[in-house]
């Protein structure tokens, strides 16, 4: 999912960089409203976990693998805004230390994974949660479905950026169909792992899970008048 240098032209890449910087600033403003001392180690550990999870590529089709994004997982565990900060930190470490994900494409990758998959996927999660019970299994299952949907969402982001500034002339429809199809498949793996991890944390500490009904703390959604 990490866009390398060269796929998207410099103008669109720079534009995405501005959007990503704005998103990060908004995220810090929001976490300063709810991220209490006891959630700080949790948020840092979720970042470490997302970094680890993104290192494992699992086979999806002959000749194709996929890896987790962890964006919905982070958003459900520590909140969508802290989740955006988590994804930004992970992408910075990957790009600056491990040469994974182009440096000129950093903004594009933050937009697709952090903003679209993370914030978008969390919105899907909140929406779906209205139609389920408040049990722990329902929370984990809903997180799994939202996580599965977040992969094709992120792929849509890439297709839009390619349509705006792709460097090789190709039919957008073809890129759209290919990107949606492959990422819908990878989303199945994303959903399964997200559901399992959320269920595991819910079993021991539902009060630490931002997206859970049992969360002991304030959510930014509730702080909005």
């Amino acid at each position, binding site marked *: 999912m990490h866009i390398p240098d060269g796929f998207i032209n410099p103008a669109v890449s720079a534009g995405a960089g501005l959007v990503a910087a704005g998103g990060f600033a908004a995220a810090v*403003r929001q976490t300063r409203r709810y991220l209490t001392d006891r959630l700080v*180690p949790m948020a*840092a550990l979720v970042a470490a976990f997302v970094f*680890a999870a993104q*290192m*494992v590529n*699992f086979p999806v089709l002959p000749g194709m693998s996929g890896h987790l994004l962890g964006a919905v997982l982070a958003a459900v565990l520590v909140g969508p805004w802290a989740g955006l900060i988590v994804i930004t930190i992970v992408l910075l*470490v990957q790009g600056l230390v491990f040469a994974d994900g182009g440096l000129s494409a950093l903004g594009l990758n933050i937009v697709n994974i952090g903003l679209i998959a993370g914030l978008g996927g969390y919105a899907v999660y909140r929406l779906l949660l209205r139609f389920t019970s408040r049990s722990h299994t329902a929370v984990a299952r809903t997180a799994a479905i939202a996580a599965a949907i977040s992969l094709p969402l992120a792929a849509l982001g890439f297709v839009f950026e390619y349509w705006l500034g792709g460097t090789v002339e190709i039919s957008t429809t073809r890129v759209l169909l290919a990107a949606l199809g*492959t990422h819908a498949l990878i989303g199945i793996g994303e959903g399964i792992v997200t559901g399992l991890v959320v269920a595991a944390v819910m079993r021991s500490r539902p009060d630490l899970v931002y997206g859970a009904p049992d969360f002991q703390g304030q959510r930014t959604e509730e702080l909005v008048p």
Partner: protein
Amino acid sequence: MSSRNWAVFGGLLLVALVTAGLISQVSSSQPDGLEYVAEQEGFASAEEQHDLAESPLADYGSGLGADSGTARGLAGIAGVLLTLAAGYAVFLLARKPKPGRSPLPPETSARD
């Protein structure tokens, strides 16, 4: 900070270290979804070399000299600890200011 917190925190850290240090060694080397689409649709050739491609840690330690599995595992553990430290530092700055504790930077807390 109760000991129950540390059970969850320790569990998350352990799973992260095992995932990055051991499971990552059997990671599939097939192209991922986006690389696959790029190859199928014919824009893979547009990829430019990463600015840090010559770094020994590039591509998770492929230039470390050790066998690729061990190198990837070591790079993964280093990455987890680095991400943890960076995350802790950033979230300390981005946490909710306590009344009486001078927040950094001071002016933004006025929004609450």
